[in-house]
């Protein structure tokens, strides 16, 4: 198992947290990826990447209006910038004393805690535990692109489940989402549109 760090914690709450990282670390996290924060022995928080945000700083503001910016200057700005890239994470559950839960974590991670990408085995373990209870955290987050986030997550989870011998997971997950969203026609249809794209590309 290769542990891939995606950065350290900038700020956090029970419902989610923000990770800061260098541009060099940006290859790893992708939209919809599942991450984990190992806080202490036997306490781990899980989350989904829902936003990767690159903030400007004073120098970038000046450079974007300059003519003929030198490649070395661009590289220097990217790799030695003062402002980190921000990765927003939605908390979706935790594991304590070996027990997985789809409830919100009782305590958030602390500043500068390292955050890692979950590997496929961990992803399968978490998404197979319980009965898709973590979907409610995603569906509650009204200011997020819920359907896109779910589609991205389902696509990645499906790949992991297929690899670990459970190709029907996606059907169970889709069924649960349809059940949860059957009274919300616009959102469900948007989600199904996204899932169609997932299935086409899978």
């Amino acid at each position, binding site marked *: 198992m290769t542990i891939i760090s995606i950065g350290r914690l900038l700020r956090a709450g029970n419902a989610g947290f923000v990770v800061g990282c260098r541009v060099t670390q940006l290859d790893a996290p992708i939209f919809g990826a599942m991450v984990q924060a190992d806080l202490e022995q036997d306490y781990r928080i899980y989350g989904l990447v829902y936003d990767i945000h690159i903030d400007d700083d004073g120098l970038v503001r000046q450079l974007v209006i300059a003519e003929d910016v030198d490649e070395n200057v661009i590289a220097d700005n990217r790799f030695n910038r003062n402002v980190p890239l921000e990765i927003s994470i939605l908390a979706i559950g935790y594991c304590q004393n070996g027990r997985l839960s789809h409830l919100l974590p009782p305590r958030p991670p602390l500043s500068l805690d390292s955050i890692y990408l979950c590997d496929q085995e961990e992803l399968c373990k978490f998404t197979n535990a319980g009965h898709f209870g973590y979907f409610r955290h995603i569906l509650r987050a009204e200011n997020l692109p819920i359907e896109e986030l779910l589609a991205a997550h389902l696509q990645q989870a499906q790949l992991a489940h297929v690899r670990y011998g459970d190709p029907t997971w996606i*059907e169970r997950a*889709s*069924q649960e989402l*349809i*059940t949860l969203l*059957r*009274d919300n*026609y616009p959102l*469900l*249809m948007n989600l*199904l*549109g996204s*899932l*169609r794209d997932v*299935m*086409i590309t899978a």
Partner: protein
Amino acid sequence: MNEVDKLKNMNEKPEIGYLVGGGLRENLKVRLVVPSHQVQEGSFIVIESGDWQFYGLVTDLQLGATDPRFADEQSEARLPINLAALLHGQTLYTNLEVLPALMLERGPEVGSPEYAQWRESIDLGLKPEPSPIPVKTIPPHHALARLAEPGDVAEIFGKVEKVGNFIIGYTREQDHPVCINLEKFVQRSAGIFGATGTGKSFLARILLAGLIKFNRASVLVFDMHNEYAYDDTASDTGLRVIGLQSKFPQSIRVVGLGKGAKIRDKMPDFNLEISMSDIQPEDVELLSRELNLKETTPTTLEALVTLYGREKWFSAFKQMRNGAMVVGDDGKKYPAPDSVAAWANNVGVNVMAAEALHSKMGRLFGRAYVVEQPAVDTVSEIVKALDGGQHVVLSFGEHQKDLDYLLVSNLLTRRIREVWERRTNEFRTSREKEPRPLVIVVEEAHKLLNQEIANQTTFSTIAREMRKYYVTLLIIDQRPSQIYDEVMSQLGTRVSGWLGDEDDIGAVLSGLAGRDALRGMLARLQPKEEVLLLGWGVPMPLPIRSRRYEDQFWQELLGKSGEKLIRKSEADLLKEIGY
């Protein structure tokens, strides 16, 4: 699949849905979890709820959606098949509307200590043996519903093996035998209804064969079209139709109307002639519509009876000459002494009214079977045969006019009624010989029981009160709406084939609970071989595929061993060969 698996499979009771709403008044709503084509309107449904089992009838199937937009949009065109199927499974559904009819206490789970306790309290007589009762409560939400098994049908409609239970047909989807209790059937008047060509006569033959075989009641059939006694040819298929007399030669007496009458080229056992002395003024009044009689008729008839008596009036009136005149000494014409006019003048009756009545009654005077003195007292012979446990089919032969049917059937029934009434009264006094129950079968019943004349016929009296006197009617008709409401409401068992007319449907369902739900069911029965069982004589309404009147029926009914009466289930057959 091996046989053991097959048997196991048969013992499983797959659910078809679960209860989602409804009530006693508005029917129960069951969310279907199997494809809707597996359940039909009229399906017999069992809903299990703890210690109780509820029995009902599917009266409607309705498509629904959690949001109408899911139904409006053909999402299968937009989404992959599996995703569309998942979506439809969650958002589109079919609800069954189930008319709850009966409930039965099943007790705790068999084998549990609670069951033993429950059973013991019944065996000790502390609790009555559970039997189906009209539904008084409803099962809770999410109670599981399933299609009735043969055991459920037998629990409600009676076991095939039990004496007196007669298979009238089979459930439509699964072919489970459905019985009616003949003992109960003959306790009240019954009716077989259906538009023309729906198989009423065949069903009547089947029921009559069952009654004759059961032999707890005598049957008198007024066979207007000579169909029941001897072998006939079906009007639609051209195939030979076995007559009842062919199969029950010892117990059926065939009576032909009129001297020398032949029925289907065969000599009947008796010939029926009506004595003029038997015809009463009421018999003539009954024919008001047939003979186009006026309001003055009762007055004229009363005058005749006053002068000649109830036995002689008809003969005397027949002998009078209508319009006969003689020339008097003064050269003027006067009514002849034996003329109608002379009699009318003598008794102070309007001459024109009397002459008109005489003229109209000419049709009656001319009936060949109405004679001064019959050679044999056939009516007494009929009563004797019925009393002796035989059955009588009165075939009208060539006399198939409404006039003949109305006159003869009413007159004969009146005579029989008098005998049974007298015997019942004697039995109640002496407790010696209980009268044998009698079922009178009347075709084209609306002619005898319509609103205009129902009160004047013996039939309506029988339908209303003769149950007490051991006589009931089995009426066969295609226009039940024409039958007097009061008679319809008294019918115990009603067996109805397809009916198209709203009024007819309303009439068949009159006085029954849940008639609004059953209304559509009657209109949507298959035009042939499907009938709806209704009324007091059956535990709950149920549409069935009626038994076929063919060789197999006779083999099953008259087979040497009792076992042949039962159509064995696959499970029984497997058990017999050791599984």
